[in-house]
């Protein structure tokens, strides 16, 4: 019999509504002050560093973490509201988002106490930026194939090799990475990988930028040459990072950032179409809104399950799969519908510019955080097919 799929109709509790108002007011002030332009998803010039600090001051980083580490002990659902409002406004979240979503929770779980006390409060204040070192040249989603070595030496490890597709490594203060500490065994090909906290200022680390097809630069190649990592920067068990890394990926899946990345194209289409759409535009917009609403209800449902302490692995993978496929298709559907919008409409130029960027961004959406193929494998396992 099939695994039961559950998507309970979770509603956001009342405290989320108050919080949503606060986030919207904050973002409106930032927009008015010129920090960023909500109509421009390309935020090269946005004041990330200062914005990051102000978000920290509001108490919106490390929201669910213990107070003794600078956290705020609020719910996943409150964090959910902050994330979706930031995404929808095209706020420049790059500097803090990875640390808040992924790196912080990993440190909370696996880092020694003195490191938690040192680093977590700085994440909460929006002072530091993290990147993730999982992929390597010729490995990518295939973590088993990771080769970059951590060799035991006096008081720590020496790292040799390279990581690739590391988002924000060029501005990051730290990286959480997996390295090979011993070869896989015959019985367990997942054996032999260990997770480390890497200070990016360590000698022997070189960051080489990789330009993207959007013209932006977020990705990097990071080359390690005898870079020294002290013993207490090892996270969790030696040779046991496989399970840790995959649970880390669970934080990457199912959140609002997994279906809202190209949302701005839909808003701009509605703006360009105006209040009295023809039947074709109305139907197109209606379908997209129905799909968006459904995605969001699925995503909130998974957030509610996480809040309740459940582990909705299959449901989270489903949300990431259909969410990223949806946000990838969205700009193309908007483009089709926009073909019939009056070219002279004053806002058409904005729509064109946004579509251009969204269509260029779209190919990566089903790759980052686990490719569609990998996710469908996880879903198939959940269905009992393997």
């Amino acid at each position: 019999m099939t695994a039961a799929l559950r998507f309970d109709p979770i509603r956001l509790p009342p405290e989320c509504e108050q919080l949503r108002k606060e986030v919207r007011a904050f973002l409106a002030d930032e927009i008015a002050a010129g920090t960023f332009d909500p109509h421009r998803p390309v935020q090269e010039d946005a004041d990330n560093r200062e914005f990051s600090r102000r978000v920290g001051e509001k108490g919106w980083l490390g929201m669910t973490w213990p107070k003794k580490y600078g956290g705020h002990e609020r719910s996943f659902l409150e964090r959910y509201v902050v994330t979706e409002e930031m995404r929808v406004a095209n706020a420049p979240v790059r500097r803090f988002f990875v640390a808040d979503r992924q790196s912080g929770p990993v440190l909370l779980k696996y880092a020694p106490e003195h490191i938690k006390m040192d680093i977590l409060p700085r994440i909460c204040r929006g002072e530091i930026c993290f990147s993730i070192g999982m992929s390597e040249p010729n490995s990518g989603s295939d973590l088993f194939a990771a080769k970059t070595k951590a060799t035991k030496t006096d008081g720590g490890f020496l790292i040799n090799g390279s990581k690739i597709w590391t988002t924000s490594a060029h501005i990051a203060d730290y990286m959480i990475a997996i390295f090979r500490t011993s070869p896989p065994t015959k019985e367990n090909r997942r054996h032999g990988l260990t997770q480390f906290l890497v200070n990016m200022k360590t000698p022997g680390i070189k960051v080489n930028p990789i330009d993207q097809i959007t013209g932006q630069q977020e990705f990097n190649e990071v080359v390690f040459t005898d870079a020294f990592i002290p013993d207490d920067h090892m996270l969790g068990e030696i040779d046991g990072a496989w399970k840790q890394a995959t649970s880390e990926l669970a934080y990457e899946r199912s959140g609002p950032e997994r279906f809202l990345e190209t949302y701005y194209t839909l808003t701009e289409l509605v703006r360009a179409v105006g209040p009295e759409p023809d039947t074709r535009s109305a139907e197109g917009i209606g379908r997209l809104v129905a799909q968006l609403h459904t995605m969001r209800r699925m995503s909130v449902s998974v957030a509610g399950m996480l809040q309740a302490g459940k582990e909705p692995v299959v449901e989270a993978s489903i949300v990431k799969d259909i969410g990223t496929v949806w946000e990838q298709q969205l700009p193309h559907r908007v483009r089709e519908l926009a073909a019939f919008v009056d070219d002279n409409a004053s806002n058409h130029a904005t729509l064109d510019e946004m579509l251009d960027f969204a269509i260029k961004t779209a190919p990566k959406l089903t790759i980052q955080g686990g490719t569609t193929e990998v996710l469908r494998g996880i879903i198939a396992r959940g269905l009992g097919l393997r």
Partner: protein
Amino acid sequence: MTETDNIVAETAERIFADLADAQTINHDKQGSWKAPLWQALAENGLALSWVPEDCDGSGTSMAEGFSVLSVAGRAGVSVPLAETMLAGWLLAQGKIKSPAGMMTVAPANTRDRLTLNGDGTISGRARGIPFAREAKHIAVVAGSSIALIDASACKIDAGLSLAGDHSDTVHLDKVKPTAIAKAPAGIDEKALLLMGALARSLQIAGALETMLSISVQYSGERVAFEKKISKFQAVQHNLAKLAGETSAALAAASSAADAFSHGAPIDDALFLEAAAAKIRCSEAAEKGAAIAHQVHGAIGFTQEHILHRYTLRALAWRDDFGSESYWAVELGKLVANLGADELWPLVASR
């Protein structure tokens, strides 16, 4: 199958499991399973779930009633349970007592209107009325009134849905209602269509759950090229997509049912919930049916296999109470009218 949350849904599960076994029904060309199934549904008060006790119903909550529809969808049988529940709900809005026996509702097509004449009779044509030929009574909205009509007073042209279920055209020529009442504020043709659309969404999501379940099961039985087909990555990925479509349908339908269970007036947010459910569930029916048949291969295309009961019904239910394109146009107009900057606040309002 999804675990059930309440005793009403458990009762429905048990009745369908006992009396609507898929293989038996498929081999019973005479339809002799129908009478005992209906009798059990009626005797256990499920058919009049949404009718308060003072209107001769069982006074079940909206939420529990919706869960009965999910169960009915999973069973995928040709029985007017949803229709009788909708009729009872509509009549109760006008404080009209529900008669015993099968009922249906009209209009169920977005372009049909029934008129209340000056002499208190009702006229008009209503197409695509599910089970009109089997129903003893039809609950209708005519103008701003709710009325109970004796089906034998109408001329009924037989029709069939895509799934081969009765889908008839009902002609009312100055028919005198058995009972009539003024509809309360907010209860009109559109409200009936929305409730009907929501009922169909839950049924479609339920049918998809069964389609997923039997497809997964079949993939573990069927051997091709010396392997179970469930071991082929292409098949696994297809089933993962089917799980995705099923999940989307479940999430959309159960969210809308939850929204309607709180008895709020039909505002923009509630409209979004119901319209989105019908649109997304209908899209899922199309994609899901294609995958389920692909996984089953040629055997799933035969009358003798049970698959068509779920796939064809899920596809047929798209057409009742407004198709996905109808609701998409209505939702698109609403969104355009509210304006670009109100779209996110609307979506995030719940």
